[in-house]
Every structure is written in C-alpha cells, then in structure tokens.
C-alpha cells in the first residue's frame, strides 16, 4: 500500500522537457523532502501532485486510484506566499474549508453548526500556537504566524497528502526552528503523508523520513531542453523516523541536538507577541 505512486511520469512544456521518466512510491505517513537545484522541476512535480497541471505521459496514483485532474480536498497545500486569504481573519481562514465543504450554496454556516465548527477551528488555532490572534487579519501577522495559519487552514480538511512548496523558505532561522518543531508534531499526530519541496538541505534532513533529490543527468547546454530532471538521489533517513511513534519523536530531543527550543512547552508557543 502506497500513498502516492508515480509511474514513468514525464512533464514537457512545448519542446522543453522538465521531468523525465520519474518513478517512485511514497509510503503512507512518510515525510518526503524534495530537494534539487533551482529550476530542476521540484515545484512542477508538486503542481502535478496537486492536480494543478497534467502529466504529459505516465500516471500518478493516489492511494491506488488515478489522481483527480484538478485540486481537491484530499490534497492540502501550503505555499511560501499567498497561502491564506487576506480578506478573512485568522478564524475565518481556518473555518473556510469546512464551511465551503458543508454548505455548497453560500459557503457559510450558521447557528449550532457554526458554533461547533468554531470550537474545532479554535482547537486547531491553539494547536498551531495562534491562540489570541483569532480576529486578526493575515496582514497583521508576521511571516511565521501566517505560515502557521496556512498549516491550520490546510489541516482542517484532514488531507491525506499535505503538499508544501518551500513553506518556511522566507522565515528567520529562529522562527523556522520553531515551526519545524510544529511541523514534526503535526506530521506525527495526524494521519497524513507529507511531500515538501525545499532548497534547504538541513531542513530536508531535519524533517523528512526520506530525501529525494531531483537533478539533470545530462547538462550540456545544447541538449538541456531535451533532457529533463530525474531522481538523482533517494535517501532514506537513518535511523528511520516513524509517524505516530512517541518514543522516536521524543528520542530525537534526547540525542543532544544543538537546539534547546524543543524542550519548551508546546501548547500555545511561541508567544505570538514575541514573534514579530
């Protein structure tokens, strides 16, 4: 059983081959970090998984079924920017997905249904450490808080696959460490598979269960257009990380990492006021 299967996937734009004959399986609950040089097709691959673009040749299977032709609630996404809606408050952003899903005409819930959803949304907001900011607009949040909000918004849909497109690339190192801890905890607790595009190798090895490096096998300028990127390295992290296993998750702290932040309490941190 695999969460995602790619079989001989090619992606071409006109004459330009971007992805060349990619085949790999992603195990359920794994955390795949996609790395590679700029322009090698990492984000293109993510868009294919999202259903935003179609493969030129080959098939992508999601839980054994052919991937739908357009984005849907089974695949959540967090981008580096523009992941949250500027016209909605934090609470509105988090509630949006379930509201759209359950009310197909106006996309709004009222009465008891709304109150229930609001409670669930507030739990999720607390989970990502944004309690107290429910009524703020995204423009009033720092970059780190916006990405936490984007995660909360995506996770409300309980996606089977969470796709991350350099989600933490624009954050300060300290904030990035905090949000890495959050990301690990969420991945550990929620039944989802994560595929993350990143250009930060350290991030890839910190978070991933597996690091897949894309790269061009042939790089002569005159044939660059005709050969796309394929898998250059496929590394399973050792010792293996398993989602849902408390012990392994906790043991990472005991290994004496150079970073003391994980030792702090999790709920509600970091204090949003200090993260500006």
């Amino acid at each position, binding site marked *: 059983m695999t969460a995602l299967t790619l079989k001989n996937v090619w992606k071409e734009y006109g004459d330009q081959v971007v992805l060349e004959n990619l085949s790999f399986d992603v195990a359920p609950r794994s955390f795949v970090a996609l790395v590679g040089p700029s322009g090698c097709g990492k984000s293109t691959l993510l868009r294919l998984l999202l259903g935003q673009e179609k493969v030129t040749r080959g098939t992508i299977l999601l839980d054994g079924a052919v991937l739908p032709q357009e984005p*849907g609630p089974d695949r*959540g996404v967090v981008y580096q920017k523009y992941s949250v*809606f500027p*016209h909605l408050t934090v609470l509105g952003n988090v509630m*949006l997905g379930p509201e759209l*899903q359950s009310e197909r005409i106006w*996309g709004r819930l009222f009465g008891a249904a709304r109150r229930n959803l609001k409670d669930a949304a507030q739990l999720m907001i607390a989970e990502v450490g944004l309690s107290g900011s429910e009524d703020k607009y995204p*423009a009033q949040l720092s970059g780190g808080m916006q990405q936490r909000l984007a995660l909360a918004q*995506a996770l409300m*849909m309980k996606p089977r696959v969470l796709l991350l497109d350099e989600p933490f690339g624009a954050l300060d190192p300290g904030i990035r460490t905090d949000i890495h801890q959050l990301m690990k905890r969420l991945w550990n607790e929620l039944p989802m598979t994560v595929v993350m595009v990143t250009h930060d190798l350290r991030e890839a090895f910190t978070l991933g269960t597996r690091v897949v490096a894309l790269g061009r096998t042939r790089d002569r300028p005159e044939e660059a257009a005709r050969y796309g990127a394929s898998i250059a390295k496929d590394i399973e992290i050792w010792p293996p990380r398993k989602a849902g296993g408390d012990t392994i998750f906790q043991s990472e702290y005991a290994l004496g990492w150079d970073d003391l932040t994980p030792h702090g309490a999790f709920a509600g941190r970091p204090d949003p006021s200090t993260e500006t």
Partner: protein
Amino acid sequence: MRLINQQLSPPVATALKFAPFALLVLAYLLGSAARLAENPNDKLLPALSSIAAAVDLMAFTPDRRTGDYLLWTDTWSSLKRLSAGLGISTGLALIIGIGVGIVPFLRALLVPFVNFVSMVPPLALLPILFISMGLGETSKIALIVIGVAPIMIRDLAQTVLALPREQIVKAETLSASSWLIALRVVLPQVMPRLLSSLRLQLGPAFLFLIAAEAISADSGLGYRIFLVRRYLSMDVIFPYVAWITFLAASADFAIDRLRRRLFPWSELEGGR
C-alpha cells in the same frame, strides 16, 4: 535636506491644504471687483452678492411657473439618472468582471468584445441613443452605462486575474466549487477595487450625464446650466458648477469611507 525628505508640521500641512482654495476665491474676488469697477453691469464675474441672490432664487424660492425649488428638483433628477447609470454599470462590472476573470469560457467569449466596445466614444453614440430610445430617461442612463461600464468591467477583470493563482488553487484544496470560489474568495477580494473603480468613474459619469441633459431634458443640473447659458447667467452657473463638484467630491469621499468600513483588511493590504 532634500525636498523629498521634508517633514511638515501639522499646522503647515493644514495651511497648505487650504491655500489653493483660498487663492482661487481670492483671484475670483479680485477679478470680479476689477471688472465690476469698470462696468457695473458685467455678467462674466458677478459679485458674491449677486451670486448669493441667484442661489436664493434657485434654491430657496419656489419657481414662479411651477412652484418647484429648482436647484433641488434639478439635483434630484440628475442624481436619479446618475445613480441608475452607475448602479447598472457596477452590477454589470461585478458579474461580467468576475465571470471573465475566473471562467476561461467567458474570458474567451467576452474579453475581446468588451475591449472593443470600451473604445467606442460614448458621446458619438448619443444621437443613436436618442433616436432609438427616445429623449426620456432611458437614453441618458444608457449613455452613462455605455460610457462607464466597459471600463469598470475591464478594470475588475484585471483585478480578478491579478489574484495570485495560489489562492485559487488553495480554495480548490479547501473543496470550493467554481461558484463558491467566485462568492467567497474572489468577490470579497475585488469589492474594494470595485468601489475604487466606481470613485474613478464618478467624473466620467457626470460628464455623460451633463452632456445628455444639455441636449435634451426638462430638468437636471446640466440642463439648467445650459439653459441659463443663453442669458449669460454666470451667477447661476457658478453655484451650479460648485454644487456639482461638491456632490461628486462627497460621493468620492463617502465611497472611500464605505470601503474602509466594509473591508478593513483592504487598508492593511495597502488599499487594494
């Protein structure tokens, strides 16, 4: 210090704000006094007293023939035409602009057509409108719509297309249908721009209104100005022009306040 780095103290800033208005009034008064000194019957720049008398006659004395207070009936009929024209244009802009912005089928169907229609000079259509729709209200409202709506549609479609693609995809992953994306993601985000666009179109809308009224009407601000022009009644024309300007400026101000009130986030995003 460079000019661009100058910091103005609040009293200076206020004084500068009022200075051009004061200069305008002063220039008028001096010019008027000079001309009247030469010829007491000069009609070109009437004294403030004769303007006040004309305002009293137009606004606060019932007309001898009809018993109406002319300024107010003129204002009422002009504003009715203006709001009908702008209302229809705003509605069209909203529906067509969003449709064109998010539905590829409508984009292919309507964009070239709207772009073409927006290049038709509306005033050149005025005779056609008068001939085909008669001299009543319909043709005047139609002129405002034809003059204003295509620009607003183009502007709104551009705004929709400028929304980051990521947001639309994100909404899809949150299970939104095309309709729900239009309703909950696109519509609220383009409303501030629609209001700004409406503000910018107030000027052209008044232009088309006054042009239509000047040619054929039995009341209205533009009608009155062109009527009294025959008698060189600058003492009526000046207050009417000032009144029209005041109406347009208040509408501009009110729409902007409305935008800030209804869409507080748009101010945070830099007044989109």
